[in-house]
C-alpha cells in the first residue's frame, strides 16, 4: 500500500469533516473516505424537555441555518399539541424562513465557494479566501458584505435574534409586524433582489463559462433527489409534500408524517454521521460509484430538479434556461452553485411576495396552545436540504422521543461519492499537489456539509 493523504480539516465548509485518500503502490487512488466527525446528541438530550423549549434548543444544531431548525421544530410541536396556528403567524414564519435562505446563499456562494472561482482553484491558500477577494475585488467584496449584513439585520431588527432565533412559538409567532417595519423590509428586500439578479448574471457571464470543464466533470455522480413541492409541483421552502425523485426523473410525493416509509439511515464504521437512503426504492444502500443504490441528493440542485416549476417569475425564467442547458434532473455536482443562485433569486422574490400580502401585518399572530401527549413531524426546506423534526410528547407536553434528519445528512453519501469520484479523476501515478487536493475539496463545497 502506498501513502495516505489526510485532508484535515475540510475548510470553507460549515461543519467538521476530513478526507482520507489511500494511494496504492502506483500512486493511484485505492480508496477515498470522507469522515464526518460531529456527534452532539440532540436527539438524546432533548428528551424530557418541555417541547416548546426544544424549539429554542435545536437551533444550536447549526448557526448557519438556525431559522430552519427553529421552523421545523415549531411545526413539529404544533402537531404534537394539536395547535391551531394563527394565519398571520404562519405568514411571518414563512417570510422569515425565506429570508433566512437569502443570507445563507450569499454566504455559501461568495464566502465559501467563490474563492475557488474568483481567485482560481490553484491560487495559494493564503489568498484563496474571502480576504483575498477583498483585496482583489474590493468593490464586489464590500457589496457582498453589505448585502449579507443587510439580510441578517433586517431579520434581527424585526424578530429579535437572527442567530438562534426565538420568535417562532407553538401556535404562531411571538409578535406582529407593524406597517413601518413591513415597509422597511420591503425596501431592503428589493435591494437584495437586485443583488440576486446581479449575482446570477455575473456568475453566468464571468464564472461558470470559465470553469465549464470543471463544472461538468468534477464530482459528478448520478443519483436521485429530494425536495419539497406545493400541490401543483411548484418549489416551496416552507410547506408542502416531500418529493423523492429517482435518477430517471420519476418520483413519489409523500406527506412528511410518512417519511419513515420512504427514507432509512445507514451507519458506517468511518463516520458519526448517518447516511439516509431511499428505502422505498427497495434496492438497499450502496455508495459504489458505478452502481449506486438508494442514493439521492438534497439541497438546491435537488430542489431545482424536483420541482415542476418555480412560482416566481424571474427565478422561473432562470430555471427554464438552466433546464435547457442541463436537462432534468441535472446531475453535475458543481451545478449546485448555479442552482443556489437561482434559489437566491427565488427567495428574494418570495420574500417580497409575502411582505406584500396585507395579511402579514395581522395583529393576531399566536394562538394559545395546551401542552399534551402527541406525535408531530415538522419539515421545511433548509438551505442544505429537507429538514425533518419528528417528536413524540408525554402528557405534560415534554419530549419522549425525537428523531431528526438534517438537510446535510441526506447528502453525506453523495458527498462521500463525489469526493471519491474527484480523487479518482484527479490523482494519477502519485501526482498530487495542493491544487489537486483543493479541487477534491471543491466537490464537498458544492454541497457543504
Amino acid at each position, binding site marked *: 500500500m502506498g501513502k495516505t*493523504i*489526510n485532508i484535515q*480539516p475540510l*475548510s*470553507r465548509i*460549515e461543519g467538521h469533516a*476530513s478526507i*482520507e485518500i489511500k494511494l496504492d503502490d502506483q500512486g493511484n487512488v485505492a480508496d477515498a473516505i470522507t*469522515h464526518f*466527525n460531529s*456527534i*452532539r*446528541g440532540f*436527539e*438524546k*438530550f432533548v*428528551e*424530557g*424537555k*418541555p417541547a*416548546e423549549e426544544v424549539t*429554542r*434548543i435545536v437551533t*444550536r444544531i447549526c*448557526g448557519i441555518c438556525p431559522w430552519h431548525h427553529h421552523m421545523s421544530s415549531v411545526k413539529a410541536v404544533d402537531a404534537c399539541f394539536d395547535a391551531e396556528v394563527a394565519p398571520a403567524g404562519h405568514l411571518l414564519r414563512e417570510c422569515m424562513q425565506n429570508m433566512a435562505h437569502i443570507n445563507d446563499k450569499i454566504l455559501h456562494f461568495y*464566502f465559501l465557494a467563490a474563492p475557488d472561482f474568483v481567485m482560481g482553484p490553484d491560487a495559494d*491558500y493564503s489568498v484563496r*479566501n474571502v*480576504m483575498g477577494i*477583498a483585496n482583489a475585488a474590493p468593490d464586489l*467584496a464590500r457589496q457582498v*458584505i*453589505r448585502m*449579507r449584513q443587510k439580510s*441578517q*439585520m433586517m431579520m434581527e431588527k424585526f424578530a*429579535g*435574534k*437572527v*442567530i*438562534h432565533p426565538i*420568535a417562532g*412559538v407553538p*401556535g404562531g409567532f411571538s*409578535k406582529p409586524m*407593524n406597517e413601518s417595519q413591513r415597509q422597511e423590509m420591503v425596501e431592503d428586500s428589493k435591494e437584495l433582489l437586485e443583488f440576486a439578479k446581479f449575482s446570477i448574471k455575473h456568475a453566468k457571464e464571468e464564472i461558470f463559462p470559465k470553469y465549464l470543464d470543471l463544472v461538468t466533470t468534477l464530482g459528478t455522480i448520478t443519483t436521485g433527489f429530494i425536495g419539497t413541492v406545493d400541490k401543483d409541483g411548484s418549489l416551496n421552502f416552507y410547506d408542502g409534500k416531500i418529493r423523492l425523485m429517482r435518477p430517471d426523473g420519476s418520483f413519489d410525493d409523500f406527506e412528511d408524517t410518512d*417519511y419513515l416509509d420512504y427514507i*432509512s*439511515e445507514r*451507519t*458506517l*464504521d*468511518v463516520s*458519526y454521521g*448517518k447516511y*439516509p437512503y431511499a428505502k422505498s426504492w427497495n434496492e438497499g444502500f450502496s455508495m459504489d460509484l458505478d452502481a449506486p443504490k438508494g442514493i439521492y441528493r438534497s439541497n438546491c440542485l435537488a430542489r431545482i430538479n424536483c420541482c415542476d416549476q418555480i412560482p416566481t417569475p424571474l427565478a422561473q425564467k432562470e430555471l427554464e434556461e438552466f433546464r435547457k442547458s442541463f436537462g432534468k434532473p441535472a446531475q453535475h455536482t458543481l451545478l449546485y452553485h448555479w442552482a443556489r443562485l437561482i434559489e437566491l433569486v427565488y427567495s428574494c422574490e418570495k420574500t417580497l411576495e409575502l411582505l406584500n400580502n396585507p395579511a402579514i401585518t395581522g*395583529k393576531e399572530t399566536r394562538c*394559545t396552545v*395546551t401542552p399534551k401527549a402527541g406525535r408531530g413531524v415538522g419539515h421545511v426546506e433548509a438551505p442544505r436540504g429537507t429538514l425533518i423534526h419528528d417528536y413524540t410528547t408525554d402528557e405534560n407536553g*415534554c419530549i419522549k422521543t425525537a428523531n431528526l434528519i438534517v438537510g446535510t445528512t441526506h447528502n453525506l453519501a453523495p458527498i462521500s461519492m463525489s469526493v471519491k469520484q474527484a480523487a479518482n479523476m484527479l490523482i494519477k501515478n502519485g501526482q498530487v499537489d495542493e491544487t489537486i487536493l483543493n479541487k477534491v475539496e471543491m466537490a464537498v463545497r458544492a454541497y457543504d456539509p
Partner: protein
Amino acid sequence: MAVNVASEWLNSCSGCEIAILNLGETLLDLLPKINFVHIPVLMDHKHLGQLGDKQHIDIPKATVGLVSGGIRNEEHLEVAMEMRKKCDIVIALGTCATHGGIPALINSVTNEELFDRYYATESTDSGAQVPTKGISPLLDRCYALDEHIKVDIYLPGCPPHPDQIATAILALLNGETPELPFKSVCDTCPTKRMGKGAVKGIKRAVECPEFDPDKPIDEMRCLLEQGYLCMGPVTRAGCAGTNGEAPRCISARVPCRGCYGPVQQKGNQLLDMLNALASNGIDLSQLPDRDSLLRFSGAHNRLVVKQGKKTRR
C-alpha cells in the same frame, strides 16, 4: 503592523463564526489590521499541512487565538492544546467555549446512553454499531475550554453580539485588555417592573404574555412579573450590543433563557435562579424541568450523570 489571528471551532455550531461575519463592514475595516493565519471557516490552512502528510496538528503562531465550541472529543482537545501553545492570548468565544453551551446538555447522560439512542432512532437501520475508524473518540462529557486549557479572555453569548466581538478585537489591536461589564440582562431591560410578589406560579411559554405591539417595549410589564420564567436576573448582559436596545429575546416578547451564561464567570444560573424565584415566593414545584436552567452552562461539572439519571450539581 497587522496582528496575527488564528481561529478554531471545536464542539460548535458555527453561530459564533457567523456572529463574526455579522460585523459586516466593520469587519472589512478591521481586515487590514488583522492577519488571519488559520481560520478553517474561511481559509484553507490545514492541520496536517497542505498535502496532508504531517503527523501532528500544526497551527501557525498567532498573537490572538479565537476558539469557539466546547471540548467533546480527543481531536477538540488536541486542537485546543495546540491553539494554547501557539497563541499568546486565547479568547473563549461564545457560551459553548466559556460554559459548555447547549451541547453540554449531553452531560446528564452517558456516552452509552447517547449512542443507544442515536444509533437506534426510528429511521436508523437496525444493527448499527458505534463507528471506530478515522473518527475522533468522544471524551466522557462536554467540557468548557478552561477545564482543559488556560483562557485569557471570556466572551460569552450564544452567539456573542458582534459589537462585543469588535470591542474585544479592537482593544487587543490597541494592546489593551478588553473589559466587559458584569451586569445582568435585567439591568439592561427596559420593561416595566411593578414590584415583588405579583406571581405565585410559573407559566409555560405556550401562553402569550400581555403587551401592546404598537407600544414600545418599555410599556410591557416584566415577563417574570407576568409569571414567565425569565432568566434575565441570573444571566450576563450583552446580547443587545452597545446601542442601548432591549435584550434580544425580550424585544421579541419572549423570556430570556440565559444564553450569555451566569453573570459572573463562576456563577451558577440554576442555584441563582431558584433563589430568585424562592425569594419572590414562587412555587418551585411547578418548574417542568430544572436542568433546563443550566441549559447553557452545563460544563464545569454542573450537569452530571448519576446512575444513569441526572442530578448532583
